[in-house]
């Protein structure tokens, strides 16, 4: 039976069919639906699910569950893996006990990423971790299951690297049987396996490299590294969603070029690639973002076919996602053909006013931003981070002077204030505060600088689609939990000037901003009011008796 699934839904289905027991995630577009869905269905399937406080903690939670023998899935967006990498890399050394798959979602073209256009494939090299790249929703499901199989066989965690156009692509997907799950684990002590201390850690690295070497043998035989198309002297090597654009372009051109589609990014089936390029005159490597496959092919060609002309990033961009309109001209170019543009509107120079994303109607942040704009003296620096409050940078607000990552609003504020007398107001959301704000706040107190920090507590992680966080008293599965008060944490960090304000009390808010801007020590306003969208949804579901 087939059912239309979103790529992320297909991953959930694949994990359930593989018999996943334990799922931990941190929301981030384009990966968020994976956690949202598990939050809704975990109980029904006997699976444990949590939204962890950040991606490192999510990774560690699954590592612990894996060490206890459970089958684990971890999901996050690309930047999340940066946070989680400190746990991930030694996890590859210890290896898994219960099979573990890590879903990491990249976002070429930065549709929903205000940090960088990160290519997570780099982690394959850094961590020596197996990495698979599905190209559509069906493969997203199949590769998730394959990931669990590989993890089970080699006791290695496996990354499934998806991109926006895979995560948020829908297509009919074959539905299989869901395996029964249990969340009963047992940790069996094994110091040799779970403790990464020298000198043992170096033996572990060797064991890891050996495992990857053996897995390389499987990759050579895997049906997911597949040769398609006919014969010819000009070929294509590709992976991920790019494959779909190639199929589309070749269809349009009426061509049947030999194409090697790689499901494995790490380890690469080097022999298969070598035998593919051996008989070619020219090869085009079609991969989104940085050309690492191309580099690998360059190395292999030196041995088996030094005359081979290798094209890739000379005809395709390193930045921005691909589509048929980008891949088409590249293929035509290496064939020496003309690409007929399908765009018929000539002189496409229409300037259409930009419709910026904006705060929702009734959003409590409106009050905070307008209060800040009104009372902040000329020249005040405004700090930012990741969440709905990054809309501070767009019109009509325009109060954002730096933005880098989760928690950057406080960490960077300290660095500026330590060296400058300029006034500085920095915003951080409740979700980001729990995620990465607390160590930065402690540092600000400990190392004595005095920014004004406004914690925008809208009682939920809103930007990514309303996921619960530790300030809400609800877990990812909807269970009641301790409601952790942000103001208590702030006080416990040693902040002397703390005030909790409902931003609708705009005169109190303005007076406090003025007062706190003159403090010699760090000061914190917790602006506490529920997200307007979430409040409306809660009211609606109350009305409908749910």
């Amino acid at each position: 039976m087939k059912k239309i699934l979103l790529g992320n839904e297909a991953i959930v289905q694949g994990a359930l069919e593989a018999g996943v027991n334990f799922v931990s995630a941190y929301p981030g577009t384009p990966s968020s639906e994976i956690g949202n869905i598990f939050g809704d269905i975990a109980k029904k399937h006997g699976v444990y699910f949590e939204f962890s406080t950040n991606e490192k903690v999510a990774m560690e939670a699954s590592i612990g569950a894996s060490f206890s023998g459970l089958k684990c899935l971890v999901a996050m967006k690309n930047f999340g893996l940066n946070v989680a990498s400190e746990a991930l890399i030694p996890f590859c050394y210890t290896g898994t006990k219960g099979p573990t798959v890590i879903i990491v979602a990249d976002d070429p073209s930065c549709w929903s990423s205000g940090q960088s256009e990160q290519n997570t494939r780099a982690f394959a090299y850094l961590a020596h971790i197996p990495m698979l790249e599905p190209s559509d929703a069906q493969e997203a499901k199949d590769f998730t299951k394959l990931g669990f199989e590989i993890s089970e066989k080699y006791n290695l965690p496996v990354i499934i690297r998806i991109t926006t156009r895979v995560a948020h692509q829908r297509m009919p997907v074959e539905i299989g049987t869901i395996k029964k799950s249990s969340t009963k684990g047992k940790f069996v002590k094994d110091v040799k396996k779970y403790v990464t201390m020298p000198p043992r850690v170096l033996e572990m690295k060797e064991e890891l490299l050996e495992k990857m070497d053996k897995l390389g043998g499987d990759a050579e035989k895997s049906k997911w590294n597949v040769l398609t198309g006919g014969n010819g002297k000009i070929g294509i090597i590709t992976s991920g969603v790019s494959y779909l654009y190639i199929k589309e372009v070749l269809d349009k051109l009426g061509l049947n070029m030999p194409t090697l589609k790689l499901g494995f990014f790490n380890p690469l089936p080097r022999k298969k690639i070598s035998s593919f390029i051996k008989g070619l005159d020219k090869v085009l490597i079609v991969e989104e973002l940085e050309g690492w496959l191309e580099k690998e092919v360059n190395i292999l060609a030196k041995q088996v076919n030094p005359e081979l002309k290798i094209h890739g990033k000379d005809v395709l961009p390193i930045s921005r996602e691909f589509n048929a309109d980008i891949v088409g001209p590249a293929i035509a170019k290496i064939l020496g053909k003309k690409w007929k543009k399908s765009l018929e509107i000539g002189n496409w120079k229409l300037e259409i006013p930009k419709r910026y994303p904006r705060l929702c109607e009734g959003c409590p942040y409106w009050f905070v931003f307008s209060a800040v704009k009104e009372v902040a003296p000329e020249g005040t620096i405004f700090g930012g981070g990741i969440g709905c409050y990054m809309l501070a940078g767009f019109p009509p607000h325009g109060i954002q002077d730096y933005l880098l990552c989760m928690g950057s609003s406080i960490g960077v504020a300290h660095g500026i204030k330590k060296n400058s007398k300029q006034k500085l107001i920095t915003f951080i959301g409740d979700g980001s505060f729990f995620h990465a704000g607390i160590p930065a706040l402690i540092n600000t107190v400990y190392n004595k600088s005095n920014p004004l920090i406004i914690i925008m507590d809208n009682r939920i992680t809103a930007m990514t689609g309303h996921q619960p966080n530790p300030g809400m008293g609800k877990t990812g599965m909807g269970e009641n939990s301790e409601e952790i008060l942000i103001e208590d944490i702030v006080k416990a960090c040693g902040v002397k000037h703390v005030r909790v304000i409902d931003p609708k009390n705009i005169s109190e808010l303005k007076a406090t901003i003025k007062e706190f801007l003159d403090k010699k020590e760090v000061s914190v306003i917790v602006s506490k009011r529920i997200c307007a969208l979430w409040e409306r949804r809660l009211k609606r579901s109350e009305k409908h008796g749910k």
Partner: protein
Amino acid sequence: MGNKTFNIVITGTGGQGLITLLQIVAEAATIEGFDVKTAELHGLSQRGGSVNTHIRIGEKVYSPLVPLGSADLILSLEYLETLRAIPYSNSKTTFLINCYSLPFVGTISEKEIDRRLSELIKSDKIIIAASEVCRKELGKDVLGGIYLISYAAFKGLLPIKPESIKKAIARIIPKKYLDINQKAYKLAKYAN
């Protein structure tokens, strides 16, 4: 329809229900036995900003993205946003446009939008007051999308029968909102 892919671009702003519409069309396409692939965006781009979604229907569909100049049908939920979808059109593309504006600071006048639309669109252009009808009859602008897609099916602008759209609505829309959505579908049936 043969081997040709039928390409739909839906354009509008975050919050207008574009993803629900996409789900309905995709579901209806599979009810009729077609292959289908779609593309959508979530997150930051959804917060009231410009959004477009792609739906491709055919015997076998590869890419989820509609290439430029290749849309068979452009469904616009917001008047100005129609302009942003024009690069996907060609001389045979049908535009079905909701006569409905969500203005913002710095926008251009409706007159100017009119001028640009008639200058740039040489193909069929159908403008209907979908959201207005839904507001008057059902009290909700946001149903304009359901009205528009149903209208497209009834007028033969889609390779999908209205009956399949109706079935898909019943599968996709949550029960508590189903009745009002079905009413929007029926309103479109009797539209001129």
